[in-house]
Protein backbone atom coordinates (compact mmCIF):
# COMPACT_ATOMS: atom_id res chain seq x y z
CA UNK A 1 0.00 0.00 0.00
CA UNK A 2 1.36 3.41 -0.95
CA UNK A 3 1.78 6.22 1.57
CA UNK A 4 -1.08 8.26 0.14
CA UNK A 5 -3.35 5.23 0.27
CA UNK A 6 -2.41 4.62 3.91
CA UNK A 7 -3.13 8.22 4.71
CA UNK A 8 -6.48 8.02 2.96
CA UNK A 9 -7.42 4.85 4.89
CA UNK A 10 -6.51 6.49 8.16
CA UNK A 11 -8.49 9.59 7.27
CA UNK A 12 -11.51 7.51 6.31
CA UNK A 13 -11.25 5.53 9.54
CA UNK A 14 -11.26 8.69 11.61
CA UNK A 15 -14.21 10.06 9.68
CA UNK A 16 -16.06 6.78 10.14
CA UNK A 17 -15.48 6.77 13.89
CA UNK A 18 -16.50 10.42 14.14
CA UNK A 19 -19.68 9.86 12.13
CA UNK A 20 -20.62 6.89 14.29
CA UNK A 21 -19.98 8.80 17.50
CA UNK A 22 -22.02 11.69 16.12
CA UNK A 23 -24.90 9.41 15.18
CA UNK A 24 -24.88 7.86 18.63
CA UNK A 25 -24.79 11.26 20.27
CA UNK A 26 -27.67 12.47 18.10
CA UNK A 27 -29.71 9.41 19.01
CA UNK A 28 -28.95 9.84 22.71
CA UNK A 29 -29.92 13.49 22.67
CA UNK A 30 -33.03 13.01 20.52
CA UNK A 31 -35.00 11.93 23.56
CA UNK A 32 -36.32 8.86 21.73
CA UNK A 33 -34.83 6.71 24.48
CA UNK A 34 -34.50 7.46 28.20
CA UNK A 35 -31.08 8.86 29.04
CA UNK A 36 -30.66 6.17 31.69
CA UNK A 37 -30.59 3.61 28.89
CA UNK A 38 -28.74 5.62 26.26
CA UNK A 39 -26.45 8.12 27.98
CA UNK A 40 -24.70 10.83 25.99
CA UNK A 41 -20.97 10.49 25.39
CA UNK A 42 -20.07 13.33 27.78
CA UNK A 43 -22.08 11.55 30.48
CA UNK A 44 -20.10 8.35 29.89
CA UNK A 45 -16.83 10.29 29.93
CA UNK A 46 -17.88 11.94 33.17
CA UNK A 47 -18.72 8.61 34.77
CA UNK A 48 -15.32 7.35 33.69
CA UNK A 49 -13.46 10.37 35.05
CA UNK A 50 -15.42 10.39 38.30
CA UNK A 51 -14.73 6.70 38.81
CA UNK A 52 -11.03 7.26 38.24
CA UNK A 53 -10.94 10.43 40.36
CA UNK A 54 -12.59 8.92 43.45
CA UNK A 55 -10.61 5.70 43.01
CA UNK A 56 -13.60 3.32 42.86
CA UNK A 57 -13.04 2.35 39.26
CA UNK A 58 -9.35 1.80 39.94
CA UNK A 59 -10.18 -0.44 42.87
CA UNK A 60 -12.64 -2.41 40.76
CA UNK A 61 -10.00 -2.80 38.09
CA UNK A 62 -7.41 -3.84 40.67
CA UNK A 63 -9.72 -6.54 42.07
CA UNK A 64 -10.37 -7.92 38.61
CA UNK A 65 -6.68 -7.87 37.70
CA UNK A 66 -5.79 -9.58 40.95
CA UNK A 67 -8.20 -12.43 40.22
CA UNK A 68 -7.02 -12.80 36.64
CA UNK A 69 -3.32 -12.73 37.47
CA UNK A 70 -3.55 -15.13 40.42
CA UNK A 71 -5.71 -17.51 38.37
CA UNK A 72 -3.46 -17.25 35.34
CA UNK A 73 -0.38 -17.77 37.50
CA UNK A 74 -1.84 -20.95 38.99
CA UNK A 75 -2.84 -22.18 35.54
CA UNK A 76 0.74 -21.62 34.31
CA UNK A 77 2.24 -23.34 37.35
CA UNK A 78 0.10 -26.41 36.78
CA UNK A 79 -0.34 -26.32 33.00
CA UNK A 80 3.23 -25.88 31.79
CA UNK A 81 4.92 -28.64 33.83
CA UNK A 82 2.02 -31.00 33.20
CA UNK A 83 2.05 -30.19 29.48
CA UNK A 84 5.81 -30.77 29.33
CA UNK A 85 5.42 -34.11 31.10
CA UNK A 86 2.68 -35.04 28.63
CA UNK A 87 5.03 -34.26 25.77
CA UNK A 88 7.87 -36.30 27.24
CA UNK A 89 6.13 -39.27 28.88
CA UNK A 90 3.63 -41.40 27.05
CA UNK A 91 1.98 -42.60 30.24
CA UNK A 92 1.19 -39.05 31.38
CA UNK A 93 -0.05 -38.16 27.92
CA UNK A 94 -2.43 -41.09 27.68
CA UNK A 95 -3.74 -40.35 31.17
CA UNK A 96 -4.24 -36.59 30.95
CA UNK A 97 -5.31 -36.19 27.33
CA UNK A 98 -8.67 -38.01 27.58
CA UNK A 99 -9.53 -36.06 30.75
CA UNK A 100 -8.60 -32.77 29.13
CA UNK A 101 -10.58 -33.59 25.99
CA UNK A 102 -13.62 -34.36 28.11
CA UNK A 103 -13.39 -31.20 30.23
CA UNK A 104 -12.41 -28.73 27.50
CA UNK A 105 -15.79 -28.46 25.76
CA UNK A 106 -17.41 -27.36 29.05
CA UNK A 107 -17.41 -23.57 29.13
CA UNK A 108 -15.79 -22.25 32.29
CA UNK A 109 -18.92 -20.25 33.19
CA UNK A 110 -20.93 -23.49 33.47
CA UNK A 111 -18.92 -24.23 36.59
CA UNK A 112 -19.89 -20.96 38.29
CA UNK A 113 -22.97 -22.33 40.13
CA UNK A 114 -21.04 -25.41 41.24
CA UNK A 115 -18.10 -23.35 42.44
CA UNK A 116 -20.42 -20.94 44.26
CA UNK A 117 -21.79 -23.87 46.25
CA UNK A 118 -18.33 -25.21 46.95
CA UNK A 119 -16.36 -22.02 47.58
CA UNK A 120 -19.04 -19.40 48.27
CA UNK A 121 -19.31 -15.97 46.71
CA UNK A 122 -16.12 -13.99 46.20
CA UNK A 123 -12.51 -14.36 45.23
CA UNK A 124 -12.12 -18.13 45.56
CA UNK A 125 -14.88 -18.85 43.06
CA UNK A 126 -13.73 -16.19 40.57
CA UNK A 127 -10.12 -17.38 40.76
CA UNK A 128 -11.24 -21.00 40.41
CA UNK A 129 -13.15 -20.15 37.25
CA UNK A 130 -10.13 -18.27 35.86
CA UNK A 131 -7.88 -21.26 36.55
CA UNK A 132 -10.32 -23.54 34.75
CA UNK A 133 -10.53 -21.21 31.76
CA UNK A 134 -6.77 -20.65 31.49
CA UNK A 135 -5.56 -24.17 32.26
CA UNK A 136 -6.41 -25.92 29.00
CA UNK A 137 -4.81 -23.44 26.59
CA UNK A 138 -1.65 -23.56 28.75
CA UNK A 139 -1.65 -27.33 28.98
CA UNK A 140 -2.26 -28.01 25.30
CA UNK A 141 0.21 -25.42 24.09
CA UNK A 142 2.97 -26.63 26.39
CA UNK A 143 2.26 -30.15 25.18
CA UNK A 144 2.43 -29.21 21.49
CA UNK A 145 5.44 -27.01 22.22
CA UNK A 146 7.44 -29.86 23.67
CA UNK A 147 6.55 -32.10 20.78
CA UNK A 148 7.69 -29.39 18.38
CA UNK A 149 11.15 -29.17 19.95
CA UNK A 150 13.60 -30.16 17.23
CA UNK A 151 15.12 -33.57 18.16
CA UNK A 152 18.44 -32.25 16.82
CA UNK A 153 18.56 -29.72 19.67
CA UNK A 154 18.19 -32.55 22.16
CA UNK A 155 20.92 -34.57 20.46
CA UNK A 156 23.20 -31.55 20.23
CA UNK A 157 22.54 -30.69 23.89
CA UNK A 158 23.11 -34.26 24.95
CA UNK A 159 26.36 -34.56 23.01
CA UNK A 160 27.59 -31.39 24.74
CA UNK A 161 27.02 -32.96 28.13
CA UNK A 162 23.60 -31.60 29.11
CA UNK A 163 21.82 -33.80 31.65
CA UNK A 164 18.02 -34.10 32.03
CA UNK A 165 17.72 -30.96 34.21
CA UNK A 166 19.82 -28.83 31.86
CA UNK A 167 17.99 -30.21 28.84
CA UNK A 168 14.68 -29.24 30.42
CA UNK A 169 15.73 -25.76 31.48
CA UNK A 170 18.05 -24.77 28.63
CA UNK A 171 16.71 -26.68 25.64
CA UNK A 172 13.12 -27.88 26.07
CA UNK A 173 11.64 -24.77 27.68
CA UNK A 174 13.24 -22.20 25.32
CA UNK A 175 12.64 -24.57 22.40
CA UNK A 176 8.93 -24.70 23.10
CA UNK A 177 8.63 -21.02 24.01
CA UNK A 178 6.72 -19.98 20.85
CA UNK A 179 3.93 -22.32 21.86
CA UNK A 180 4.10 -21.45 25.54
CA UNK A 181 3.78 -17.74 24.80
CA UNK A 182 0.92 -18.37 22.38
CA UNK A 183 -0.71 -20.41 25.13
CA UNK A 184 -0.23 -17.58 27.60
CA UNK A 185 -1.97 -15.17 25.22
CA UNK A 186 -4.87 -17.50 24.62
CA UNK A 187 -5.13 -18.31 28.32
CA UNK A 188 -5.29 -14.62 29.19
CA UNK A 189 -8.08 -14.02 26.68
CA UNK A 190 -10.12 -16.89 28.08
CA UNK A 191 -9.38 -15.80 31.63
CA UNK A 192 -10.44 -12.25 30.89
CA UNK A 193 -13.85 -13.45 29.65
CA UNK A 194 -14.19 -15.86 32.53
CA UNK A 195 -13.39 -13.33 35.23
CA UNK A 196 -15.95 -10.81 33.99
CA UNK A 197 -18.65 -13.49 33.83
CA UNK A 198 -17.73 -14.96 37.19
CA UNK A 199 -17.80 -11.52 38.82
CA UNK A 200 -21.29 -10.89 37.47
CA UNK A 201 -22.63 -14.19 38.73
CA UNK A 202 -20.66 -14.73 41.92
CA UNK A 203 -21.17 -11.17 43.09
CA UNK A 204 -18.62 -9.80 45.43
CA UNK A 205 -18.38 -6.09 46.15
CA UNK A 206 -15.51 -5.30 43.83
CA UNK A 207 -14.59 -6.07 40.26
CA UNK A 208 -15.32 -4.64 36.83
CA UNK A 209 -17.77 -7.40 35.97
CA UNK A 210 -19.62 -6.86 39.20
CA UNK A 211 -19.82 -3.11 38.66
CA UNK A 212 -21.40 -3.56 35.23
CA UNK A 213 -23.95 -6.00 36.53
CA UNK A 214 -24.68 -3.87 39.57
CA UNK A 215 -25.15 -0.78 37.39
CA UNK A 216 -27.92 -2.60 35.54
CA UNK A 217 -29.98 -2.74 38.73
CA UNK A 218 -29.80 1.02 39.06
CA UNK A 219 -30.24 1.72 35.33
CA UNK A 220 -26.85 3.44 35.19
CA UNK A 221 -25.87 2.84 31.59
CA UNK A 222 -23.16 5.51 31.80
CA UNK A 223 -21.30 3.59 34.53
CA UNK A 224 -21.77 0.44 32.52
CA UNK A 225 -20.27 1.87 29.37
CA UNK A 226 -17.42 3.44 31.33
CA UNK A 227 -16.54 0.08 32.91
CA UNK A 228 -16.88 -1.60 29.54
CA UNK A 229 -14.30 0.84 28.20
CA UNK A 230 -11.92 0.03 31.06
CA UNK A 231 -12.33 -3.70 30.46
CA UNK A 232 -11.58 -3.21 26.79
CA UNK A 233 -8.57 -0.99 27.45
CA UNK A 234 -7.03 -3.32 30.01
CA UNK A 235 -7.49 -6.34 27.75
CA UNK A 236 -5.99 -4.46 24.84
CA UNK A 237 -3.07 -3.20 26.94
CA UNK A 238 -2.19 -6.71 28.11
CA UNK A 239 -2.44 -8.16 24.65
CA UNK A 240 -0.40 -5.39 23.05
CA UNK A 241 2.13 -4.38 25.66
CA UNK A 242 2.62 -7.31 28.00
CA UNK A 243 2.41 -10.26 25.64
CA UNK A 244 3.57 -8.29 22.62
CA UNK A 245 6.68 -7.15 24.50
CA UNK A 246 7.32 -10.65 25.79
CA UNK A 247 7.13 -12.00 22.27
CA UNK A 248 9.38 -9.30 20.83
CA UNK A 249 11.98 -9.87 23.56
CA UNK A 250 12.09 -13.62 23.03
CA UNK A 251 10.73 -15.66 20.18
CA UNK A 252 10.66 -12.81 17.63
CA UNK A 253 14.22 -11.81 18.45
CA UNK A 254 15.30 -15.43 18.11
CA UNK A 255 13.57 -15.69 14.75
CA UNK A 256 11.38 -18.55 15.97
CA UNK A 257 8.21 -16.74 14.92
CA UNK A 258 7.75 -13.98 12.38
CA UNK A 259 6.75 -10.53 13.57
CA UNK A 260 2.99 -10.17 13.40
CA UNK A 261 1.26 -7.05 12.22
CA UNK A 262 0.80 -4.26 14.75
Amino acid sequence: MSASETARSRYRSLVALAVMAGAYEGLARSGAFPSALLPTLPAVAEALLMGVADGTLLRHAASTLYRVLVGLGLAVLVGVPLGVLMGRLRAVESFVLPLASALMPIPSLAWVPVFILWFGLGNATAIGIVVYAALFPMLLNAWSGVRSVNPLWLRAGGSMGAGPADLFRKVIIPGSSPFIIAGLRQAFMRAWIAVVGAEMLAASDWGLGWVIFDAKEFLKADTMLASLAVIGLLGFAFERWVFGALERATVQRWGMVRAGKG
Partner: protein
Amino acid sequence: MPYIEVYEVSHAYDTPSGRVAGVVGVSFGIEPSEFLCLVGPSGCGKSTLLNIIAGFLSPTSGEVRIGGRVVTGQGLDRGVVFQDFAQLFPWRTALRNVAFGLEMKGVPKNEREEIAMEQLKLVKLEKFAHAYPHHLSGGMQQRVAIARALAYNPGVLLMDEPFAALDALTRDDMQRLLSDVWRKTHKTVVYVTHNVAEAVFLADRVLVMTPHPGRVKTEIAIRLPRPRDPLSIEFLDCQKELLRHLVEPTPIGKDAPRNGGIA
Protein backbone atom coordinates in the same frame (compact mmCIF):
# COMPACT_ATOMS: atom_id res chain seq x y z
CA MET B 1 46.59 -49.17 18.04
CA PRO B 2 43.64 -47.32 16.43
CA TYR B 3 42.00 -44.55 18.47
CA ILE B 4 38.47 -45.52 17.43
CA GLU B 5 37.69 -49.20 16.95
CA VAL B 6 34.45 -50.28 15.32
CA TYR B 7 34.15 -54.00 15.95
CA GLU B 8 31.59 -56.24 14.20
CA VAL B 9 28.87 -53.61 14.54
CA SER B 10 25.39 -54.48 13.29
CA HIS B 11 22.24 -52.48 13.62
CA ALA B 12 18.67 -53.41 12.79
CA TYR B 13 15.54 -51.38 13.23
CA ASP B 14 11.86 -52.19 13.35
CA THR B 15 9.52 -51.09 10.61
CA PRO B 16 5.85 -51.89 10.12
CA SER B 17 6.87 -54.67 7.72
CA GLY B 18 9.32 -56.26 10.12
CA ARG B 19 12.90 -56.05 11.28
CA VAL B 20 15.30 -54.53 8.77
CA ALA B 21 19.09 -54.70 8.84
CA GLY B 22 20.65 -51.26 8.49
CA VAL B 23 24.29 -52.18 9.03
CA VAL B 24 25.74 -55.68 9.12
CA GLY B 25 29.03 -56.75 10.72
CA VAL B 26 31.08 -53.64 10.08
CA SER B 27 34.63 -53.44 11.47
CA PHE B 28 37.32 -50.84 11.00
CA GLY B 29 39.75 -48.71 12.98
CA ILE B 30 40.61 -45.01 12.91
CA GLU B 31 44.04 -43.69 13.87
CA PRO B 32 44.44 -40.64 16.12
CA SER B 33 44.19 -37.37 14.12
CA GLU B 34 43.07 -39.26 11.07
CA PHE B 35 40.43 -37.81 8.72
CA LEU B 36 38.14 -40.65 7.69
CA CYS B 37 35.28 -40.35 5.21
CA LEU B 38 32.37 -42.76 4.98
CA VAL B 39 31.02 -42.67 1.44
CA GLY B 40 28.07 -44.47 -0.03
CA PRO B 41 24.62 -44.11 -1.55
CA SER B 42 21.67 -43.37 0.69
CA GLY B 43 20.50 -46.37 2.66
CA CYS B 44 24.02 -47.78 3.04
CA GLY B 45 23.99 -47.17 6.79
CA LYS B 46 26.72 -44.52 6.92
CA SER B 47 24.64 -42.16 9.05
CA THR B 48 23.51 -45.03 11.25
CA LEU B 49 27.14 -45.91 11.80
CA LEU B 50 27.98 -42.32 12.68
CA ASN B 51 25.04 -42.18 15.11
CA ILE B 52 26.32 -45.35 16.75
CA ILE B 53 29.80 -43.86 17.16
CA ALA B 54 28.15 -40.69 18.53
CA GLY B 55 26.20 -42.79 21.02
CA PHE B 56 22.75 -41.74 19.76
CA LEU B 57 22.03 -45.32 18.70
CA SER B 58 23.13 -48.57 20.33
CA PRO B 59 24.39 -51.30 18.01
CA THR B 60 22.25 -54.44 17.91
CA SER B 61 25.49 -56.38 18.20
CA GLY B 62 29.19 -55.56 18.27
CA GLU B 63 30.75 -52.54 19.91
CA VAL B 64 32.55 -49.27 19.37
CA ARG B 65 35.61 -48.35 21.48
CA ILE B 66 37.14 -44.90 21.69
CA GLY B 67 40.56 -44.69 23.33
CA GLY B 68 39.98 -48.24 24.58
CA ARG B 69 36.65 -47.45 26.29
CA VAL B 70 33.38 -48.95 25.02
CA VAL B 71 30.87 -46.34 23.85
CA THR B 72 27.60 -46.60 25.77
CA GLY B 73 26.07 -43.20 25.16
CA GLN B 74 26.86 -39.61 24.37
CA GLY B 75 30.05 -38.15 25.78
CA LEU B 76 32.17 -35.02 25.83
CA ASP B 77 34.98 -36.92 24.08
CA ARG B 78 33.04 -36.45 20.82
CA GLY B 79 31.72 -33.36 19.06
CA VAL B 80 28.90 -33.78 16.55
CA VAL B 81 27.92 -31.63 13.56
CA PHE B 82 24.67 -32.43 11.73
CA GLN B 83 23.52 -31.59 8.22
CA ASP B 84 20.50 -29.54 9.30
CA PHE B 85 21.13 -25.83 9.91
CA ALA B 86 18.40 -25.99 12.56
CA GLN B 87 20.83 -27.76 14.91
CA LEU B 88 21.81 -24.41 16.47
CA PHE B 89 19.70 -23.19 19.38
CA PRO B 90 17.73 -20.25 17.93
CA TRP B 91 17.36 -18.62 21.36
CA ARG B 92 21.13 -18.27 21.83
CA THR B 93 23.57 -16.01 20.03
CA ALA B 94 26.40 -17.61 18.05
CA LEU B 95 28.77 -17.07 20.99
CA ARG B 96 26.41 -18.58 23.53
CA ASN B 97 25.70 -21.52 21.23
CA VAL B 98 29.43 -22.21 21.06
CA ALA B 99 29.74 -21.81 24.84
CA PHE B 100 26.95 -24.29 25.62
CA GLY B 101 29.17 -27.35 26.10
CA LEU B 102 31.51 -25.41 28.39
CA GLU B 103 28.50 -24.17 30.34
CA MET B 104 27.46 -27.77 30.85
CA LYS B 105 30.97 -28.55 32.07
CA GLY B 106 30.66 -25.74 34.63
CA VAL B 107 33.32 -23.47 33.14
CA PRO B 108 32.91 -19.90 34.52
CA LYS B 109 31.21 -17.39 32.25
CA ASN B 110 34.19 -15.18 31.36
CA GLU B 111 36.43 -18.09 30.63
CA ARG B 112 33.93 -19.95 28.49
CA GLU B 113 33.10 -16.87 26.44
CA GLU B 114 36.80 -16.32 25.86
CA ILE B 115 37.22 -19.89 24.63
CA ALA B 116 34.07 -19.64 22.53
CA MET B 117 35.40 -16.46 20.94
CA GLU B 118 38.65 -18.24 19.99
CA GLN B 119 36.64 -21.00 18.36
CA LEU B 120 34.61 -18.45 16.42
CA LYS B 121 37.87 -16.88 15.24
CA LEU B 122 38.97 -20.30 14.04
CA VAL B 123 35.92 -20.42 11.75
CA LYS B 124 36.29 -16.69 10.94
CA LEU B 125 33.02 -15.62 12.55
CA GLU B 126 34.25 -13.46 15.45
CA LYS B 127 32.39 -10.49 13.98
CA PHE B 128 29.09 -12.33 14.28
CA ALA B 129 29.53 -13.55 17.85
CA HIS B 130 26.44 -11.70 19.07
CA ALA B 131 24.15 -12.47 16.15
CA TYR B 132 21.28 -14.90 16.52
CA PRO B 133 21.33 -17.95 14.21
CA HIS B 134 18.43 -16.69 12.08
CA HIS B 135 20.54 -13.68 11.06
CA LEU B 136 23.31 -15.95 9.72
CA SER B 137 23.50 -17.61 6.32
CA GLY B 138 23.46 -21.39 6.05
CA GLY B 139 27.23 -21.59 5.64
CA MET B 140 27.80 -19.35 8.65
CA GLN B 141 25.42 -21.43 10.74
CA GLN B 142 27.36 -24.58 9.86
CA ARG B 143 30.61 -22.84 10.83
CA VAL B 144 29.08 -21.96 14.20
CA ALA B 145 28.05 -25.60 14.54
CA ILE B 146 31.65 -26.69 13.88
CA ALA B 147 32.97 -24.16 16.42
CA ARG B 148 30.37 -25.38 18.90
CA ALA B 149 31.41 -29.01 18.47
CA LEU B 150 35.08 -28.10 18.96
CA ALA B 151 34.67 -25.69 21.87
CA TYR B 152 34.76 -28.20 24.72
CA ASN B 153 37.82 -29.78 23.10
CA PRO B 154 36.64 -33.30 22.26
CA GLY B 155 39.18 -35.66 20.73
CA VAL B 156 36.80 -36.73 17.98
CA LEU B 157 34.72 -34.70 15.55
CA LEU B 158 31.76 -36.53 13.99
CA MET B 159 30.20 -34.88 10.95
CA ASP B 160 27.06 -36.04 9.15
CA GLU B 161 27.00 -34.46 5.68
CA PRO B 162 27.49 -31.03 7.22
CA PHE B 163 27.77 -29.20 3.90
CA ALA B 164 25.22 -31.16 1.85
CA ALA B 165 22.56 -28.47 2.11
CA LEU B 166 24.87 -25.63 1.03
CA ASP B 167 25.27 -24.21 -2.46
CA ALA B 168 28.34 -25.35 -4.43
CA LEU B 169 30.42 -22.18 -3.96
CA THR B 170 29.86 -22.03 -0.21
CA ARG B 171 30.53 -25.74 0.06
CA ASP B 172 33.89 -25.24 -1.63
CA ASP B 173 34.87 -22.53 0.87
CA MET B 174 33.68 -24.63 3.78
CA GLN B 175 35.72 -27.64 2.70
CA ARG B 176 38.89 -25.52 2.63
CA LEU B 177 38.04 -24.04 6.00
CA LEU B 178 37.38 -27.44 7.53
CA SER B 179 40.65 -28.73 6.11
CA ASP B 180 42.48 -25.79 7.78
CA VAL B 181 40.67 -26.28 11.08
CA TRP B 182 41.52 -29.97 11.07
CA ARG B 183 45.22 -29.30 10.43
CA LYS B 184 45.30 -26.74 13.27
CA THR B 185 43.40 -28.82 15.83
CA HIS B 186 44.57 -32.40 15.04
CA LYS B 187 41.14 -33.86 15.77
CA THR B 188 40.18 -37.35 14.73
CA VAL B 189 37.39 -36.79 12.22
CA VAL B 190 34.70 -39.17 10.98
CA TYR B 191 32.93 -37.52 8.08
CA VAL B 192 29.86 -38.91 6.32
CA THR B 193 29.18 -37.80 2.76
CA HIS B 194 27.85 -39.06 -0.56
CA ASN B 195 29.94 -36.52 -2.47
CA VAL B 196 32.99 -38.23 -3.95
CA ALA B 197 34.98 -35.04 -4.71
CA GLU B 198 34.44 -33.87 -1.14
CA ALA B 199 35.75 -37.15 0.22
CA VAL B 200 38.87 -37.01 -1.96
CA PHE B 201 39.50 -33.41 -1.01
CA LEU B 202 39.20 -33.95 2.75
CA ALA B 203 40.06 -37.51 3.68
CA ASP B 204 43.18 -39.46 4.57
CA ARG B 205 41.19 -42.60 3.98
CA VAL B 206 37.79 -43.33 2.48
CA LEU B 207 35.53 -46.24 3.37
CA VAL B 208 33.13 -47.14 0.57
CA MET B 209 29.85 -48.57 1.81
CA THR B 210 27.12 -50.45 -0.06
CA PRO B 211 23.45 -50.66 0.85
CA HIS B 212 20.91 -53.42 1.51
CA PRO B 213 22.27 -54.24 3.98
CA GLY B 214 24.87 -51.64 4.80
CA ARG B 215 28.42 -52.93 4.87
CA VAL B 216 31.93 -51.72 4.07
CA LYS B 217 32.88 -52.75 0.55
CA THR B 218 36.39 -51.42 0.33
CA GLU B 219 38.73 -48.79 1.69
CA ILE B 220 40.94 -46.42 -0.23
CA ALA B 221 43.80 -44.35 1.18
CA ILE B 222 44.13 -40.89 -0.34
CA ARG B 223 47.85 -40.11 -0.41
CA LEU B 224 47.70 -36.75 -2.17
CA PRO B 225 49.71 -33.92 -0.60
CA ARG B 226 47.77 -31.10 1.11
CA PRO B 227 46.45 -28.57 0.32
CA ARG B 228 44.87 -30.58 -2.46
CA ASP B 229 44.12 -29.26 -5.90
CA PRO B 230 40.78 -30.57 -7.16
CA LEU B 231 41.83 -29.85 -10.74
CA SER B 232 45.05 -31.89 -10.69
CA ILE B 233 45.30 -35.13 -12.65
CA GLU B 234 46.08 -37.09 -9.48
CA PHE B 235 42.97 -35.74 -7.76
CA LEU B 236 40.79 -36.65 -10.70
CA ASP B 237 42.32 -40.14 -10.83
CA CYS B 238 41.51 -40.67 -7.17
CA GLN B 239 38.00 -39.47 -7.75
CA LYS B 240 37.60 -41.84 -10.71
CA GLU B 241 38.80 -44.81 -8.71
CA LEU B 242 36.42 -44.03 -5.89
CA LEU B 243 33.52 -43.63 -8.31
CA ARG B 244 34.38 -46.96 -9.92
CA HIS B 245 33.99 -48.70 -6.54
CA LEU B 246 30.74 -46.93 -5.87
CA VAL B 247 29.13 -47.68 -9.20
CA GLU B 248 30.40 -51.25 -9.63
CA PRO B 249 27.51 -53.54 -8.77
CA THR B 250 27.92 -55.85 -5.83
CA PRO B 251 28.07 -59.46 -7.08
CA ILE B 252 24.57 -60.81 -6.80
CA GLY B 253 24.26 -64.07 -4.89
CA LYS B 254 26.84 -63.26 -2.31
CA ASP B 255 24.68 -60.53 -0.90
CA ALA B 256 21.40 -62.08 -1.86
CA PRO B 257 18.69 -60.38 0.15
CA ARG B 258 18.48 -62.53 3.23
CA ASN B 259 16.68 -59.65 4.81
CA GLY B 260 14.32 -59.06 1.96
CA GLY B 261 14.06 -55.90 -0.05
CA ILE B 262 14.40 -52.67 1.80
CA ALA B 263 12.74 -49.48 0.78
